[in-house]
């Protein structure tokens, strides 16, 4: 036997068992989840991790066995991310999100949200004006699939019919709601992600949305159905449009942070805006879920104009107070 003549041999022989033990623990924890570990093992993990780290420091100083150092580096890295890594969020986190994080993030991007609203409103006005003067413009603003018979040539009666769908009890309202939810959420995620491209694509999406809105309104105004159409739109539109505006705002805030980082570095600024945007977006998807429920069910079931306006107003008040009402911030945290 080559008696342990090297210091680095003795060093390795003394600690190798601990390293292997840490490796086995990590394997099990990552494959089966933390809960499968016994309490004693859980306590052991950070201790073993620190031992591996100190072994690494020592090995770098005294050992010239490159394979050993590589191994210790990889092992320490794995253990490091396990000890300090991501934790699945518990209920407390979700509570904190609705109580504090989300409204805060939404308030923080109010300027960008306002910009998204302005873009939408302006393009809506332009599209409205154009369609009022020349109905043929309608087709440039509204994609064919969305119009679904609501076209300049349609009769007033047909248009009225689209506002008050007759229920035969056979429609899959929940399927409709699901479709609206997934579709709108995807659009919202686009609006958010596209903001990185210097805001241009997000603003474009907002403008397209506004143009469609304006064109529709013009169509209904021409047939004297403004009051009814607005009720039809706003019952879910308050929630949905606000959610889309917020998604657009989050997107714009990222693009803005990249172009004008202020006193942060560009990377830091982008990261800050990106993470804040993610918080907003988490909430936007929740909002779109409610909006889809309102659009898929309430709009079909509630046929009375005044009731529709009442629901729209109620949602507006709820979201407004929830996001923008002043509150004590310290209390929650």
């Amino acid at each position, binding site marked *: 036997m080559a008696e342990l003549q090297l210091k680095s041999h003795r060093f390795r022989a003394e600690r190798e068992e601990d390293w292997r033990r840490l490796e086995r623990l990590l394997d099990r924890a990552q494959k089966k989840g933390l809960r499968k570990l016994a309490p004693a093992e859980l306590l052991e993990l950070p201790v073993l991790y620190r031992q591996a780290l100190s072994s690494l420091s020592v090995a770098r100083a005294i050992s010239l066995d490159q394979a050993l150092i590589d191994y210790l580096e990889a092992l320490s890295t*794995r253990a490091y991310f396990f000890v300090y890594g991501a934790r699945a969020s518990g209920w407390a986190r979700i509570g904190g999100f609705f109580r504090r994080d989300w409204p805060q993030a939404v308030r923080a991007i109010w300027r960008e949200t306002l910009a998204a609203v302005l873009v939408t409103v302006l393009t809506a006005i332009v599209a409205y004006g154009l369609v009022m003067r020349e109905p043929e413009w309608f087709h440039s603003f509204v994609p064919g699939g969305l119009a679904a018979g609501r076209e300049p040539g349609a009769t007033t009666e047909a248009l009225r019919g689209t506002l008050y769908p007759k229920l035969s009890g056979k429609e899959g309202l929940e399927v409709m709601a699901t479709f609206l939810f997934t579709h709108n959420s995807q659009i919202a995620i686009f609006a958010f992600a596209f903001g990185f*491209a210097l805001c241009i694509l997000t603003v474009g999406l907002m403008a397209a949305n506004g143009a469609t809105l304006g064109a529709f309104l013009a169509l209904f105004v021409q047939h004297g159905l403004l009051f009814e159409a607005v009720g039809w739109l706003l019952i879910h539109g308050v929630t949905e449009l606000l959610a889309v505006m917020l998604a657009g705002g989050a997107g714009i805030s990222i693009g803005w942070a990249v172009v004008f980082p202020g006193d942060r570095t560009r990377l830091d600024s982008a990261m800050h805006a990106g*993470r804040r945007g993610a918080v907003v977006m988490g909430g936007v998807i929740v909002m779109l879920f409610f909006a889809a429920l309102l659009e898929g069910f309430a709009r079909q079931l509630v046929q009375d104009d005044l009731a529709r306006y009442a629901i729209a107003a109620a949602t507006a008040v709820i979201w407004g107070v929830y996001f923008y009402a002043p509150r004590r911030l310290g209390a929650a945290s």
Partner: protein
Amino acid sequence: MTPEGVDLRLEVGAYVDRLAALLIDLLIVAGVLLALTLVIFLAFLAALRTQDELLARLLAMVWLLGFFVLRLGYFIGFELGAWGATPGKRRMGLRVIARDGRRLSADAIFTRNAMRELEVFLPAAFLFARGSGVDGALITLGGVWTGVFVVFPLFNRDRLRLGDIAAGTLVVKAAKVKLLRDIAEAAPATVSGVAFTHAQLDAYGVKELQVLEQVLRGGERRTMAAVAARIRTKIAWDGPTDVSDGTFLSAYYAALRHRLETGLLFGRRRRDKHDVAAQEKT
């Protein structure tokens, strides 16, 4: 750097590896979606035959939700897990970390994956938009513009893609490494007659030692013969010549390492054979 003050010397994941990881993930997602669609389609047919309307509606909902959830949820869910990596990334030995070394938060993971819409799906949309009535020049223009995002990671040191920038994350190598046998330990340290003088051992430094380690671990005969010949000339070997190359190299490795590690304990680190400063002090 860990909170314990040890530098882990992480390596940034290579672009090719990440591309491969993404392809694997997209294939998995596509496969699952295809399977889901097939299963639901068959169940849907069955539901139609039995006039089970409730089931049909339920299936339609599951299908719609499944598409939406898988597109983003697959990436987010796996990266939130204990591995910090999707199956594709795990396969390629990669994982996601937060750039500041702190805990990887859910917001960051959402952002880095939402940005994929811009980086992957948008260029793809331009690619497939051909022939659907959109102006060709416009498509090319848009394709070029969004194509910039695809190659973006090649133009910065940390291989950050847009999503990484916006989320403050980084993709690093995190492959498992097996603990290999210490070859100096395995070597018959005192092979009969194979002994080296200090002058013979001082011919090389740490860098050469590690190259020698690689050669020995590689175990390829021709390389070993060449290296052994080089060393024999360099140190003017005058011992027994009937020792095999492998034994000679192992013995030299063990002796050299002993010499250099003893030097380390006395605070002398000889980087390579040109590093004479460390030698002169002996």
